[in-house]
């Protein structure tokens, strides 16, 4: 079983995000970079499938040179090899453009299953994995919390509003992860040592053949970033008793906020 995991390096969730002077990108000075949490589930699931069915796990990422650090982390978790498409301009690309790069690389390597995070928690696009499947002409099942592979098919539990749907797909296919799929393992010390010797192929964006006409025909461009309007702390409700406070809150919600 050849498994490819699509991985993105993102700012850790505890990061404060500020706007850079150009107005369309973020300040990156004090950011701690990590594996996108949904991609961590993808790595873990790939390792579990490999343990059950054999095969290799390849990590594929597009990003700046420092994204090799997150690929090494995935290799330390147990993945076999990594590929980075070194693209310093990734921050200016839209999701479809990144999907085209990933699809172009995937066309040159073998795969039975591709696993991606449902979204990257930086641009929250929910786009790249699904778009890669479309560009490769293979089926996708998104937002999965469980999968079973047998007889060349994968059966997945996909989460929807208020429930789940069970769907089966022939392989090769692409699936995207949802929280609840697994608990990602930590990289062990021997794992970290071994990861240093595992193959990591760094390609440059110039090695990838992209269709210029297609690239310019569809662009989603950030024209401005802004901070959400700052919420001001409101009032702390006072009262002689818990009952008095509760009654005052309900009165305010009804008469002042008009939400009841």
């Amino acid at each position, binding site marked *: 079983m050849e498994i490819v995991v699509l991985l993105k390096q993102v700012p850790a969730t505890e990061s404060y995000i500020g706007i850079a002077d150009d107005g369309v990108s973020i300040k990156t000075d004090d950011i701690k970079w990590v594996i996108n949490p949904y991609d961590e589930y993808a790595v873990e699931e790939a390792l579990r499938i490999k343990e059950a069915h054999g095969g290799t796990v390849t990590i594929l990422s597009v990003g700046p040179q420092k994204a090799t650090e997150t690929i090494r982390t995935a290799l330390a978790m147990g993945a076999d090899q990594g590929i980075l498409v070194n693209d310093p301009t990734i921050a200016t690309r839209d999701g479809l453009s990144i999907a085209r790069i990933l699809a172009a690389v995937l066309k040159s390597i073998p795969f039975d299953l591709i696993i991606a995070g449902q979204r990257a928690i930086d641009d929250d696009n929910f786009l790249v994995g699904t778009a890669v499947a479309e560009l490769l002409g293979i089926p996708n099942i998104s937002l999965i919390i469980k999968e079973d592979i047998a007889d060349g098919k994968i059966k997945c539990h996909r989460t929807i509003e208020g429930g789940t749907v069970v769907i089966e797909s022939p392989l090769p296919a692409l699936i995207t992860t949802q929280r609840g799929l697994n608990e990602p393992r930590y990289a062990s010390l021997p794992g970290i040592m071994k990861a240093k010797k595992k193959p990591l192929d760094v390609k440059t964006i110039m090695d990838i053949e992209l269709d210029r006409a297609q690239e310019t025909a569809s662009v989603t461009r950030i*024209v401005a970033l802004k901070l959400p309007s700052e919420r001001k702390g409101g009032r702390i409700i006072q009262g002689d008793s818990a009952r008095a406070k509760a009654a005052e809150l309900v009165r305010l919600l009804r008469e002042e906020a008009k939400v*009841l």
Partner: protein
Amino acid sequence: MSQGVLVISELSDRVFRKVTFEAMSEGRRIADHMKGNLATVVIGSGIETVANELKKYGADKIILVDDPTLSEYMTDSYTNVLADIITKEKPDVLILGASAQGKDLSARLSARLNAPLAMDGVAIRVDNESLIVTRPLYGGKILADVRLEGKPQIIAIRPNSMSITECENAGLMKSWDPVVGKTDLRFIEKQVETGKVELTEADVVVSGGRGMGSNNFSILEELAGLLKGAVGASRSAVDEGWRPHSDQVGQTGKVVSPGLYFACGISGAIQHLAGMSTSKIIVAINKDPDAPIFSKADYGIVGDLFELVPLISEEIRKIKQ
């Protein structure tokens, strides 16, 4: 003349999702702005009666795709059918809800049609021929205005972020013969909890955090039930195993923007705030007067949530009588 706007409506067991009405209302507004038409696709099985409901939201044309093979959303069959409709109808703008279905479908259509997509749009404005869509990044820590260059411009709108406006229109209904094409995916079964209000679509959300101390959320369920709302949870409550992952509100869970949000026993970590700070009114109940959540809340009560929440329910019951 502009070809106008096409809205892909969404049914859940033959009932429209609320976000469909939000998409229709927004679609009507944009179509008027661009002096184009508003068309909508209703896709499913046995749906002709329910499709008429969309006339209330100003559809000039309702494209009815009623076929037994389309009773359940499947990525491949729906993408094939809709890509065919879009190619023939040539809308300038395509709007749908950013639901589990809408996110999957819009991404696939964007790649198939090589068309720009703004996911989870919370506001749309028309700027000459193209649209500027505001969408949250980093779980809502920042907002981006994005310009869509290409056709059709696809916008998946975030549930609960745009208003619903009714607008009677004598729209015509047109049956469409679906081109289902080659499909690989096979539907096996679906399990949906009936009567449960979906977190992202709820008008009221009552969330509990570490301060709940256990998996007993019954007082929150009671309050949510009274207000026809949904129960949410902070990441720590989910990590403790007190609530399912699907209830998690925050940067790595669901982002909600209800009219009223109760944060009970939630300190207010940045990841949680990212997931709920666009709520219209926030109420915080916490024992710790220094909890960061109070700086984001419109109303705060310092105290024991186990004492306060049942009293709040009692007071609400009084005014509901």
